[in-house]
């Protein structure tokens, strides 16, 4: 039977997964909203962040350095990718953008497989956060609790960038009407590069923070990418708050369903997505007419 404490601990699992999905999705959604490109390599970039952190962790033994390395490395990957390939695709049809980012995701995954094999790798959480914490009525792995906090801080940072800085204002304006922003004399070219870099960093950060929770394999990004899509469909494209709400909903649905039967987790996720599509096709916090 399912006990009360089991249920609560699944709620926490859902919260941790949800926060993580929210972070990855908000990266994807601001990239799409600003640049108009749906980055199918986003899941692979999440995975790359994990591996970059893993390498740094192997070299230094410090988890903090691993997090910084994973995030910065993905920032570099994002900027290079945008400069070399993605920017040539802004004027091409959506289908071409999907094809090229899909191709890049294969390249990333297979390159990692080539260097690290398909075997799973583990990253230990920092000493301070290992073990379990007693919450009074139940015990819970300390690191998972910490993930919620760490991701919340990252989301808050992203929120400040988006809502309290000049860059954020441009990004939000660009999501509403990129043509207008362009004609206001803002250097959209540079903004696009920075936004892609920030989105990539969010994915990389999530990748390394998640690494101690699950073992690291080259395919870890694929499942995350699919979940991210559901999050965005539920939350609404181009909406930062929608990504957070959608992430938490998706995380809880997966966790709670898994308690009964993990095989139905996706079915329930899909059911939720279908209901949203039927009732509110633009997503819970999405704006009508934004495709």
């Amino acid at each position: 039977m399912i006990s009360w404490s089991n249920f609560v601990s699944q709620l926490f699992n859902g919260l941790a997964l949800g926060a993580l999905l929210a972070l990855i999705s908000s990266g994807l959604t601001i990239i799409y909203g600003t640049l108009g490109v749906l980055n199918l390599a986003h899941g692979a970039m999440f995975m790359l962040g994990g591996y970059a952190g893993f390498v740094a962790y192997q070299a230094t033994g410090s988890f903090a350095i691993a997090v910084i390395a994973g995030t910065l490395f993905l920032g570099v990957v994002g900027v290079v990718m945008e400069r070399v390939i993605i920017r040539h695709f802004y004027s091409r049809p959506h289908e071409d953008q999907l094809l090229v980012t899909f191709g890049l995701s294969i390249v990333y995954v297979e390159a990692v497989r080539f260097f690290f094999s398909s075997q799973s790798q583990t990253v230990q959480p920092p000493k301070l956060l290992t073990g379990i914490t007693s919450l009074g009525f139940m015990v819970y792995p300390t690191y998972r609790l910490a993930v919620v906090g760490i991701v919340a801080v990252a989301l808050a940072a992203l929120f400040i960038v988006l809502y309290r800085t000049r860059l954020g204002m441009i990004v939000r304006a660009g999501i509403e009407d990129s043509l207008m922003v362009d004609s206001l004399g803002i250097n959209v070219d540079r903004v696009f590069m920075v936004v892609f870099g920030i989105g990539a960093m969010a994915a990389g950060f999530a990748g390394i923070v998640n690494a101690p929770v699950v073992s690291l394999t080259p395919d870890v990004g694929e499942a995350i990418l699919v979940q991210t899509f559901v999050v965005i469909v539920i939350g609404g494209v181009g909406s930062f708050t929608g990504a957070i709400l959608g992430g938490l909903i998706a995380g809880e649905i997966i966790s709670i369903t898994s308690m009964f039967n993990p095989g139905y987790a996706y079915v329930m996720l899909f059911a939720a997505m279908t209901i949203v599509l039927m009732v509110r096709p633009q997503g819970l916090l999405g704006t009508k007419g934004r495709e």
Partner: protein
Amino acid sequence: MTGKRMRGKQAGMMTSSVMRSHQFGLVEIMTGIALIAVPLILPYLGSAPNTVNRILVWGLFGIGFDILFGYTGLLSFGQSALYGTGGFVTAYLLTRAGFPYVIPALIIGMVVAAIVGYLVGLVALRRTGIYFAMITVAIAEVFYFVEFNPLAEYTGGENGLPGVPTPSIPLGFTTLHFTTGWSLYPFLAFCYFIGIVVALRIVRSPVGTIFRAIRENPLRAAAVGHNVHGYKLTAFVIAAAYAGIAGGLLGVLQAFMPPEAFTFDTSGQLVIQTAIGGRGTLFGPLLGAAVWLFLQDFLQATLKLGAAWKLVLGLVFVVLVVFLRHGIIGGIVDLYRWLRRGRRGAADVDEMPADVGTDGSAEVDEGATTQPVTLPNRDAPQYAGPILKATGLTKHYGGVIANADIDFSVDRGELRGIIGPNGAGKSTFFKMLTCEVPPTSGTIVFEGRDITRMRVTDVCQLGLTKSYQVNQLFNRLTVRENVTIAALAALRGKFRLDMMRSLAKIPGLHEQVEHTLELVNLSKRRDTPVSELAYGEKRRLEVGLALASSPRLLLLDEPLAGMSPAERVETVKLLKSIAQGRTMIIIDHDMDALFELAERITVLQEGRVLVEGTPEEIKGNAKVQEAYLGGVHGVIDAQTAVA
């Protein structure tokens, strides 16, 4: 009908092109010959029969996908769901259920996949563009997990279903056994052949034409009167059926139905192969599969790359997407065109139609003789009174009032002009009349029928349509294809599944298209792609698209916008000839033109009707002059004011 077709050079061109779709067989025969030749040649080149068979299965899978992606423009990353469904239904019937007949089992698998495709399509097609791609990915993932877990009892879970038999066909005197390798090849090749023949018919049918219209401009396809959602769903179901039978054949080919059929990799590989070979070609997926599988064999076996083969192919794919937009077949076509252009060079310039001047206008085609078709479903209802009557029409955008309380009425046969300064709400008014945007309040009555809450497609089918202020054309298609798309909506209604019928066999289509082309003076440009037209020609085609559906009320939103003075003169002449026997409402800023054309003028200002009257009354009206000149009193000729 044939007599009309034999009119001079243009008619000859038309006939030859129609004949192309009549000439059923050339592509089909070539395909048949190639399929027969393969087992006679490839074994000597050392190809493994199994690779060739797999290419055929991927190719068949891809035909349906190409109709969905290449023709209709819907990029699905979830085809594995339908491939797996068809495959597992067929395999389950043939193994666990003990059903002995392979071919009926394949057909059942196909039908089930098509039904499932219909249901999936209902959900996925709620949204378009990237949403559609994301939703299909998510749905496919659900199928994967369902196969592994809740349905594992039937599907074998991660073990799949082994022991799928191969087909045997009893012929009375003997029985054909297809087993493995080259022995199975004829069966797969036959399936592929049937698949390609059916697909070729579909893409040459009216439905295929509408698929391409949806790919090029879904909004306009809906505005000329096609049920876009219905046709998208049709394309999705067709793709599902092809996926289903291909999935079944995979089980037959491997004597085992692998659960991997349901993975995202399957969908991804299909997308990659189609993009490599060339989308919108039907044969692209087959070519792409050949490239992918042969390269895989080559990299793995010959170069001993092991698992790195996929990395290499991934890089190849990225490079291909960056540099070769339309895949290998598209690249070959471009190269061929480029070579031809290079060879003929100067000659081409002379061949340019002489009547295309710098202003892009063509001479009026005298001797236009084709008659308009009477469209049986377009007979005007018995109704006396104004053809269009709007009452209290109001539109708010948030706090902005675009139109406020407009009463507006147009009589049958009238030519009404609407003028007003920028921001007067003219375009919003038109959008409400054609039901593109719903009014905040008020009613619109067309021929006695309340159309206020109807959709733009249905209103067009009733006989009310619009030409757009900004060209809304089907850019990669030719002039004639553009007009055909609009005419099809008038002749066939908003939704009809005549997928096996050739375009040439639709009664009245040829006449309707030719007549429209003559009306807008584009007969000589009929085979030119829209992207190569001059601006003035595009404007005329824009009007032609609206005309081709034989509307009883035609709305023209700034037909003269952006034209040179010479083009304006031509277009006014054109509008005059179109106006005969039609009811039209024209918005424009060119008052000279409108005063010349219209019998009555309505002046809008700040979202309201300022005044209405004959051109003479409007010219002398002090309020109108004030509206345009902002408080300057005295008699100033409105014409000079505009100039």
